[in-house]
């Protein structure tokens, strides 16, 4: 089985670290994984996206051109990547920042008000975790939220371990939203 995911949003929304976390978790579960940032010109700002692949087989091209899932944290990302979802694939839209619906009818689309939920959890920065929680909760991901938390523990410096409970909550909340 191969998950091919694109995560995209504004710089600062944490899409890069969300992707790294997912890949890390996949690795902890013994999968072959890759994470590829789209690195832009040598200047700051703008949009950011990354490709994550989690697979039982060796990872070939790390570029995702036919995504099994797209997680779009803002509208430009949705516009750019909506088409790349394979038929039957998954699309997660951050409805807090995206005011339109998906035009695709051959895929599964989830609308998650991630920023609002994150604010409700007390920290708007965990909107990415809410989205990730939603992704993990959809049927069939080979990665568990527990592995993500495990990965988070390894990635976060010892000084930041207190952020873990909050992220745990955000992941859970994302999962709940999917299943509501």
């Amino acid at each position: 089985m191969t998950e091919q995911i694109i995560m995209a949003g504004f710089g600062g929304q944490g899409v890069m670290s969300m992707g790294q976390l997912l890949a890390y978790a996949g690795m902890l579960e013994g999968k072959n994984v890759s994470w590829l940032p789209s690195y832009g010109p040598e200047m700051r700002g703008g949009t950011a996206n990354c490709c994550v692949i989690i697979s039982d087989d060796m990872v070939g091209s790390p570029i995702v051109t036919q995504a099994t899932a797209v997680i779009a944290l803002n509208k430009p990302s949705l516009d750019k990547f909506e088409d790349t979802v394979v038929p039957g694939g998954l699309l997660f839209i951050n409805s807090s920042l995206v005011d339109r619906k998906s035009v695709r009818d051959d895929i599964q689309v989830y609308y998650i008000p991630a920023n609002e939920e994150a604010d409700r959890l007390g920290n708007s920065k965990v909107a990415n975790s809410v989205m990730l929680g939603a992704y993990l909760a959809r049927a069939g991901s080979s990665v568990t939220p527990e592995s993500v938390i495990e990965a988070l523990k390894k990635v976060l410096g010892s000084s930041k371990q207190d952020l873990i409970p909050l992220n745990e909550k955000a992941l859970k909340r994302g999962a709940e939203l999917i299943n509501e």
Partner: protein
Amino acid sequence: MSKVLMKGNEAIAEAAIQAGCRYFFGYPITPQNEIPAYMAKRLPMVGGCFLQAESEVAAINMVYGAAGAGARVMTSSSSPGISLKQEGISYIAGAELPCLIVNIVRGGPGLGGIQPAQSDYFQAVKGGGHGDYHLIVLAPSTIQEMVDLVQEGFDIADQYRNPVMILGDGMLGQMMEPVEFKERKPRQLPPKDWATTGWKGDRPRAVINSLFIDPQVLEEHVQRIYKKYEAIKANETKVECYNCEDAEIIVSAYGTTARIVRSVIELAAKEGIKVGLIRPITLWPFPADTFSSWVERDHVKAFLTVEMSMGQMVEDVTLSVGGRKPSYFYGRTGGMVPNPFDILDEIKKIRGGNR
């Protein structure tokens, strides 16, 4: 040791340190900036020295000095910076100094762009600098292999007293994959008794030099180096063949492109097309014999080289194929990455006789 998830560039740096590299001289350039950044952080911790040179020209000459002084030393850069280093690289080759040079290739020519490319193949393999010489050029296609080849690269450099180049690209530099830093069996390496370490009279005076004003002496020097190259060809050529048994079309690709071709092979298999991959791991020495061994097989109808360039390695493939089967090329350039489906289309065209 267990696996860690690492960016290619950082993995290169860590691998170098674990291989005993303690000196890094470089100059910033995208997309390899994580290498100097990592070195700047880590080298002081292990008693090494990181120095940001004033330029790539200075950097490669610092490498010359440090290598001549007997150190394990490396530099890294990307395309325009590597061009600036050509004189220095030729000197290092001429003076037979071991070192590791990393080129995380970006689109060119000129300032070009910063997206991944493989358009520095000729420069790396044929000799971007002047004179008769060769770099040993290693082309990893996963982060794990990057780590392994960096460590191997230092050993090869020391064993043969020749500069080694790691030819990567922006994608390999920037992507993350799990890697394991394995316990290595280091090679039995000759002592560096030729290095400038201060002359106490217990060995011949060390002179690091590439000038041989008498052409006869220079010719002998070059021929001696070329004899060494024969040994390198015999001992160090590395290549991976994948799915070649029964393959109708053999695709040749290295580095990032080879990964993409693996995806193509799967796509092709689904359509019942048998595609194989010859992936040169050493670009120099080029695994010509491997091509020769497949070229006479009846099931092989044609060769296709895929590169992120306008066609460079394809010349070596074609030379190896030697006219015995058709040799085709497909490439994207300027930072564009070939799409598996487009490659598959090319394969179909070749099968259909439309090329």
